[in-house]
C-alpha cells in the first residue's frame, strides 16, 4: 500500500484548511502555497499515470477496513488520466489567477484547493456514497468560486447553478437509497456483483436507480435537457474559474463511465443498455445544440460555454457506442476539449482586457491593444478548437471518425460532428475577423500581462504536444478503454475473495 | 422491560405523575386552542405544559432511576431548563403581541396603549 495514492485528496485539503487556519495570510504567501500544492498534484498525477500504466489497480483501504465495508480508493488508468488532467489544468488556472484575479474576492486559493480535493476525490473513490460526498465538496467549492469577484451576473447565474445542483444532489441520494435498499452495499465493485446477481423481476428497480444516476451525472456533464444552467454560469464566472470548470463537466462524464461501465456493466445483458440507449440520441442533440449555440452566442465566453456543451455531446455520443476504440477516442477528445475550452476562457479574459469596450462581446466594434499578437494566439487556438490540423483537435476528431466508422449508427455522429465543426469554423472566423481585422487604434494603450500570454500559449502548446506525442497517448488511452470494458478485473482486485463468494452464493 | 422487582408504590407514583402531567398539559393545549385572545392563550401553555411535561419528566426520572441502578437526573436537567426558559418565551411572545398591537378581548382591564 502506498500513501501517495491518497495525497491528491489530502494535499489540497490540507492546503485549503491551512490557508483558513493561518488567515490572515499575505496574498503572496497564499499564492505560493497554492501553487506549490498544485505543482505537487501535477507530480502526483504523473506518478499516478505511470503507476496505473502497468495495468494493475492500486487500492487504498481507508481506515484499514476491507472493501465492501470500508471506503476504498482505486487508482486505475482512467482515474490516473483524470488526476493528471485536473492537476495540469489547475496549475495553469492557479498561475493565471495569481496574476491578480485572486484578489477580487476572499479566499480564492483556499476555495480553489478545496475544489481540487473534491474533484480528485471523485476520481479516486471506489464507493458510490463517497462519490456523492466528493461531488458535494466540488460543488460547494464551485459555487463559491463561481461567485468569486462578485457582481450581479454572477449572483443570478450562481443561483440557478446552485438550485439545479441541489435538486441533482437530491436525486443522487434517491438513487443511492434505492441501490442500497436493494443490494445492501455501497462499494461499486460489490454493487456490480449485486446488480448482476439480482433476478430479472428486480431489475427494473435497479435500472430506475441507474436512470436517476444518469440524470444526476447528465446534469453535471450537461446533457441536453439538463444543461441549461451551464452557459450563463460558465460565462459569468471569472476566467481562471471558468477555465477550471472545463473539467467539471468531465467529472460528470467520468462518473457516467465509471458507474455505468462498472456498476451496471456486468453480466450477459448488462443493465447499462438502457442508459446507452438514452444517451446516444440525447448526446447527439447536445452536440448539435452546442454547435448552434456557439454560432448564436453573443460573446466569446458564451461561445466557449457552448463549446463545452458541444464537447460533452461529442464525448457522450462517442462513448455510447461502448467499444474499446470509441472509448479511447472519447478519452482523447476529453483531454483535448478540456484543454481547449480552458484556453478559450483564459483567452476571452486576455482579449477582453485589451479591448477598449465590450469586453468579449462580438457585437461591439472596438479597438484592441496588441492585436497582432493576440490575434495570432487566437488564430492558433481557434484552429485547434475547430479540429483543424495539426493540433490535438484534428487528431481527436480523426480518431472519433475512425472509431465510429464501422458502427451502424456512426454516420449520424459523423454528420452532426462535421456539421458542428463547420459551425465552429464559422463562429470563430466571424469572431476573429471582427476583432482583429477591424481598424482602429487604442486611445490609451493598456499593459499586457506577459505571464498570462505565456500561460495561454503554453496551454495551446499542450494541445500541440498532445498531437505530436499522439501515439503514446493513444496507446495509453486504448489500454484505458480496454481496462474499463473489463469490470470483472476491477472487481476481482477490489473485493476479497470471501466477499465475492458471498455474492455468488446469494440468490 | 423489567417491572417485576419494581415496588408497587413507586409504580403508582410514576403512574400518577405521568397521568397528571398528561392531563395538565392537555388542559394547557386546550386553553391555547380555546381562549379568545393571545394574551390569555399565553397562560395555558407556559404554565400547564411546563408542569405537564415536568411531571412526565419526573415520572421518567423515577422510572429510569429505578430501572438503571443509580440516580438518573438527566430528566431533571430538562425540567430545570424548561422552567428557566418558558417565562422568557412567554415574555418575548407577549412583547411581540404588544408590538403588533394585537387586540385583547374587550373586557380586558387596563389595555395597554400604543
Amino acid at each position, binding site marked *: 500500500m502506498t500513501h501517495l495514492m491518497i495525497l491528491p485528496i489530502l494535499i489540497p485539503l490540507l492546503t485549503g484548511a491551512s490557508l483558513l487556519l493561518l488567515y490572515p495570510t499575505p496574498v503572496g504567501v497564499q499564492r505560493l502555497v497554492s501553487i506549490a500544492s498544485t505543482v505537487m498534484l501535477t507530480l502526483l498525477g504523473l506518478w499516478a499515470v505511470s503507476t496505473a500504466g502497468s495495468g494493475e489497480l492500486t487500492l487504498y483501504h481507508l481506515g484499514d477496513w476491507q472493501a465492501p465495508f470500508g471506503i476504498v480508493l482505486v487508482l486505475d488508468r482512467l482515474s490516473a488520466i483524470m488526476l493528471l488532467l485536473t492537476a495540469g489544468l489547475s496549475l495553469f488556472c492557479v498561475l493565471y489567477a495569481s496574476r491578480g484575479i485572486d484578489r477580487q474576492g476572499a479566499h480564492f486559493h483556499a476555495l480553489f484547493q478545496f475544489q481540487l480535493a473534491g474533484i480528485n476525490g471523485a476520481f479516486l473513490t471506489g464507493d458510490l456514497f463517497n462519490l456523492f460526498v466528493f461531488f458535494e465538496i466540488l460543488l460547494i467549492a464551485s459555487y463559491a468560486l463561481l461567485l468569486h469577484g462578485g457582481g450581479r451576473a454572477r449572483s443570478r447565474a450562481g443561483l440557478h447553478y446552485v438550485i439545479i445542483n441541489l435538486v441533482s444532489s437530491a436525486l443522487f441520494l434517491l438513487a443511492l437509497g434505492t441501490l442500497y435498499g436493494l443490494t445492501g452495499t455501497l462499494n461499486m465493485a460489490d454493487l456490480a456483483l449485486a446488480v448482476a446477481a439480482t433476478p430479472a423481476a428486480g431489475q427494473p428497480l435497479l435500472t430506475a436507480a441507474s436512470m436517476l444516476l444518469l440524470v444526476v451525472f447528465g446534469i453535471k456533464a450537461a446533457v441536453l435537457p439538463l444543461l441549461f444552467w451551464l452557459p450563463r454560469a460558465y460565462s459569468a464566472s471569472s476566467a481562471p474559474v471558468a477555465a477550471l470548470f472545463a473539467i467539471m463537466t468531465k467529472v460528470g462524464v467520468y462518473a457516467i463511465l465509471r458507474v455505468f461501465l462498472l456498476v451496471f456493466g456486468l453480466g450477459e445483458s448488462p443493465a447499462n443498455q438502457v442508459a446507452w440507449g438514452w444517451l446516444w440520441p440525447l448526446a447527439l442533440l447536445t452536440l448539435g445544440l452546442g454547435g448552434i449555440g456557439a454560432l448564436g452566442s453573443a460573446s466569446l465566453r458564451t461561445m466557449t460555454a457552448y463549446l463545452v456543451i458541444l464537447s460533452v455531446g461529442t464525448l457522450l455520443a462517442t462513448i455510447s457506442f461502448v467499444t474499446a476504440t470509441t472509448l479511447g477516442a472519447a478519452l482523447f477528445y476529453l483531454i483535448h476539449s478540456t484543454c481547449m475550452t480552458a484556453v478559450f476562457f483564459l483567452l476571452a479574459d486576455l482579449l477582453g482586457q485589451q479591448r477598449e469596450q465590450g469586453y468579449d462581446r462580438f457585437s461591439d466594434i472596438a479597438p484592441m491593444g496588441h492585436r497582432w499578437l493576440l490575434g495570432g494566439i487566437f488564430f492558433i487556438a481557434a484552429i485547434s478548437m475547430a479540429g483543424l490540423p495539426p493540433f490535438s483537435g484534428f487528431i481527436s476528431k480523426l480518431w472519433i471518425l475512425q472509431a465510429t466508422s464501422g458502427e451502424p449508427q456512426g454516420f449520424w455522429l459523423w454528420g452532426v460532428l462535421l456539421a458542428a465543426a463547420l459551425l465552429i469554423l464559422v463562429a470563430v472566423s466571424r469572431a476573429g475577423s471582427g476583432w482583429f481585422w477591424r481598424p482602429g487604434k487604442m486611445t490609451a494603450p493598456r499593459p499586457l500581462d506577459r505571464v498570462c500570454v505565456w500561460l495561454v500559449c503554453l496551454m495551446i502548446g499542450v494541445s500541440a504536444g498532445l498531437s505530436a506525442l499522439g501515439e503514446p497517448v493513444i496507446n495509453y488511452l486504448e489500454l484505458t478503454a480496454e481496462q474499463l470494458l473489463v469490470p470483472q478485473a476491477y472487481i476481482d482486485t477490489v473485493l476479497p475473495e470471501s466477499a465475492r463468494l458471498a455474492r455468488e452464493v446469494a440468490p | 422491560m423489567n417491572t417485576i422487582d419494581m415496588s408497587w408504590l413507586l409504580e403508582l407514583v410514576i403512574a400518577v405523575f405521568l397521568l397528571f402531567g398528561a392531563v*395538565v398539559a392537555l*388542559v*394547557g393545549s*386546550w*386553553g391555547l386552542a*380555546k*381562549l*379568545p*385572545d393571545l*394574551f*390569555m392563550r*399565553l*397562560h*395555558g401553555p*407556559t*404554565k*400547564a405544559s*411546563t*408542569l405537564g411535561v415536568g411531571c412526565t419528566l419526573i415520572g421518567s426520572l423515577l422510572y429510569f432511576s429505578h430501572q438503571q441502578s*443509580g*440516580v438518573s*437526573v*438527566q430528566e*431533571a*436537567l430538562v425540567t430545570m431548563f424548561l*422552567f*428557566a426558559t*418558558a*417565562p*422568557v418565551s*412567554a*415574555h418575548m411572545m*407577549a*412583547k411581540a403581541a*404588544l408590538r403588533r398591537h394585537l387586540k*385583547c*378581548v374587550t*373586557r*380586558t*382591564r*387596563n*389595555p*395597554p396603549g400604543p
Partner: protein
Amino acid sequence: MTPQPHSRRLLNRGLRSRQFWLPRPLFSLFLALLWLLLNHFSVAHLLLGLVLGVAIPFVTHPFWPERARIKRPWRVLRYVLVLLVDIFWSNLIVAVRILRPERHLQPGFFRYPLELDDEFAITILASTISLTPGTVSVHYDAEAHTLLVHALHLEDEAATIAGIKQRYEQPLKDILR
C-alpha cells in the same frame, strides 16, 4: 485588528489572580455536580467534571458582567420550594379556569412597581411571575421601573400586587441583598 476590550481587561487583572482562573467557584462546583449527575459517578468523571467546572466559567464569564451576590444561599431552597408549590396550585387553578366557560374570566393588565433594581433579580422575579398563578410578565419598563403584567383573571389588582411583593420580591431581596 480592532482592540479587544475584554481580553485586555482580563490581562490587566493579571494571570495569577483567582478571579482570572476561577471567576465563580460556586458555579464551578455546581457544574461539576451537574456533570456527575449527568454521568454515572466515577473518579474519572469527577476529575473531568472539575476540569469542565473550571473551564466553562473561564470561557463564559465575559458574558456575565456582574458577579453573583447570593448572600444567603439557604434561602434559595426555600424560595424554590415555595415556587414549586405555587406552580402546582396555580396550575390547578388555571386549569379549572380554562375548562370553565370563558365568560367567567376577567383578564387584565397591571403595572407592578419594582423595588428590586438588579437586572438579574428582576429577571428572576419576572420569571417567577410568569411561572405562577395566571400571570405573565409582558414588559419591563426601565424608566418607570415597573413590570407590565397580564393576568388571566384579574379581580383585585392591589391584592395581586401585594401578594407578589410579599411572596416573591421580598424573599428575593433577602437572598440577594
